[in-house]
């Protein structure tokens, strides 16, 4: 058993090491309008690459710019400096190559579970029969059979997030961006959802960028954990979790990673 590998990352690019990066973030900063410019600097000179089919977590305290960074990859927020590229093409806005899951499931309350999943397919003009079939597949993938025609408010928090994941997967994006998707769930549901997310990730190979403030969640899920620090938001360290899955949450190795990351955060 080797000890966790820690790489110091300062100005250098946090590199995935794979031949062709899926996501390239190059010296990106985001300045929000604020009275004190230092406080408005959400992300400062961040560079990071994410490899094809890699599962990367952005971990840090609130205010470390992890959500802003994710929103910039999504194309929902434009960087004030630097560049973000996907498959070598610069990001200019949201695109069908990226799907997103939000902390507050952000389901359309006026649509049933299956209609929520079909939302993007309708936009794309997919015929109804095909749409239904595709959505049904996703319903079974996220284990919600029998709940197709429930409205979001009739579903528990965990179920809502399953619908949100299925909705993001419906357009078959290559990249899945997840903003603390399980942050509002109770401990037990959360562990179940993590298991299921990994199962889905292994079934439908995706590149995943996962924002979280839970150390154990990041260790359990990720190939690589990017530790960020606040004021201004910067990458502090990256930790490669080179442990085969399924991982044991209570193992000694897990505890070692936990300690390493905790030290990195402080």
């Amino acid at each position, binding site marked *: 058993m080797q000890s966790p590998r820690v790489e110091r990352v300062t100005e250098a690019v946090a590199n995935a090491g794979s031949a062709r990066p899926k996501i390239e973030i190059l010296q990106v900063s985001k300045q929000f309008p604020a009275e004190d410019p230092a406080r408005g600097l959400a992300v400062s000179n961040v560079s990071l690459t994410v490899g094809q089919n890699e599962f990367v977590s952005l971990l840090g305290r609130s205010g470390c710019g992890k959500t802003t960074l994710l929103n910039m990859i*999504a194309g*929902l927020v434009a960087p004030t400096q630097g560049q973000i590229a996907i498959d070598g093409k610069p990001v200019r*806005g*949201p695109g*069908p190559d*990226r*799907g*997103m899951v*939000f902390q*507050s499931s*952000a*389901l*359309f*309350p*006026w*649509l049933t579970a299956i209609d929520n999943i079909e*939302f*993007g397919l*309708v*936009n*794309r003009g997919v015929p109804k029969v095909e749409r239904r079939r595709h959505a049904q597949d996703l319903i079974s993938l996220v*284990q*919600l059979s*029998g*709940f197709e025609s429930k*409205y*979001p*408010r009739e*579903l*528990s928090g*965990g*179920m809502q997030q399953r619908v949100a994941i299925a*909705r*993001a997967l*419906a*357009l078959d994006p290559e990249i899945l961006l997840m903003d603390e998707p399980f942050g509002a769930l*109770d401990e*037990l*549901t959360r562990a*179940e959802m993590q*298991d*299921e997310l990994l*199962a889905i990730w292994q079934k439908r190979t995706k590149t995943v960028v996962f924002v979280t403030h839970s150390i154990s969640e990041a260790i359990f899920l990720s190939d690589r954990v990017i530790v960020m620090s606040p004021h201004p938001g910067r990458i502090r360290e990256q930790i490669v979790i080179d442990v085969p899955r399924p991982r044991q949450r209570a193992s000694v190795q897990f505890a070692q990673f936990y300690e390493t990351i905790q030290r990195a955060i402080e």
Partner: protein
Amino acid sequence: MSDTLGTGSGPDGKAKATVAPGQGECRPSIEAERQPGWAVSRHLRQTGLPLLSVAVILAFWEGAAQLGLFDASTIPPPSRVLSTVWELQTLGFPRGSSLLTHMGSTLGRVAAGYALAAVLGIPLGMLIGRSLRASRMVLPIVTFARSVATLSLLPLAVLWFGVGEESKVFLITYGCFWVLLTNVIDGAKNVDPALIRAALMLDTSPRAMFYRVILPSALPYIFSGLRLALGLGFMVIVGVELIGTSIGLGALISQARTFYRMDLVFAGMVAIALFGLLIALGLSWLERLLLPWARESK
């Protein structure tokens, strides 16, 4: 790991464990519908209790009038109002104008003004609400126009549109329009930004964003605007019908007063109240039908 669905982590499972029978009484839970005993008493509480209070008031009123506690010509008892309603429907007041004629005429005016207000107010409100600049520009105008008591415009309306139907419809439209507009603007403004972001990540065109996200999200506000506006319409109509017509519930009431026929005044009032009740019921039925997702959890 697939157990989440079965472990009862949903709201139902929790309700079962925490709602004690005593609590259920003042705060009907989902559970109440499941147990037959609760269902019956709940049904009784919902429809029986309101009916009971009405019956008690009517009984006291009737009894007091029979005992001569107050003057039947100023406060006619319910039995008298009922026979007047019948007289009004068969003989008419003025002779030949039955209760249904009055009601039909009033309903027609409200419907015309209300429909016009909806046709103008809903699209306009949606447009204004989605533009920060427009809503800033419009806010003082809306606040001012809303504060003007509609009936105070009666002389102006008569001057502009004459004493005919146009001035009446104009005033109804005016009253309904501002209330509706305010609500629609609120609805268009208060779209959850998370929903917009979610839609942006799902290949949503600007057009689809309006019709598939903003409009449905504003619908509950639009409905509450429609409900408020309708109530206002029926309030305004009575005043509007005071002049320039002998047909309509407002006209009926004002003429009955000049003849000191308080029984007729009461009959007219009951008819207006009936309208209000039926339309409120109809709207809430329509709302449940069209917005099943927005239903209050009972």
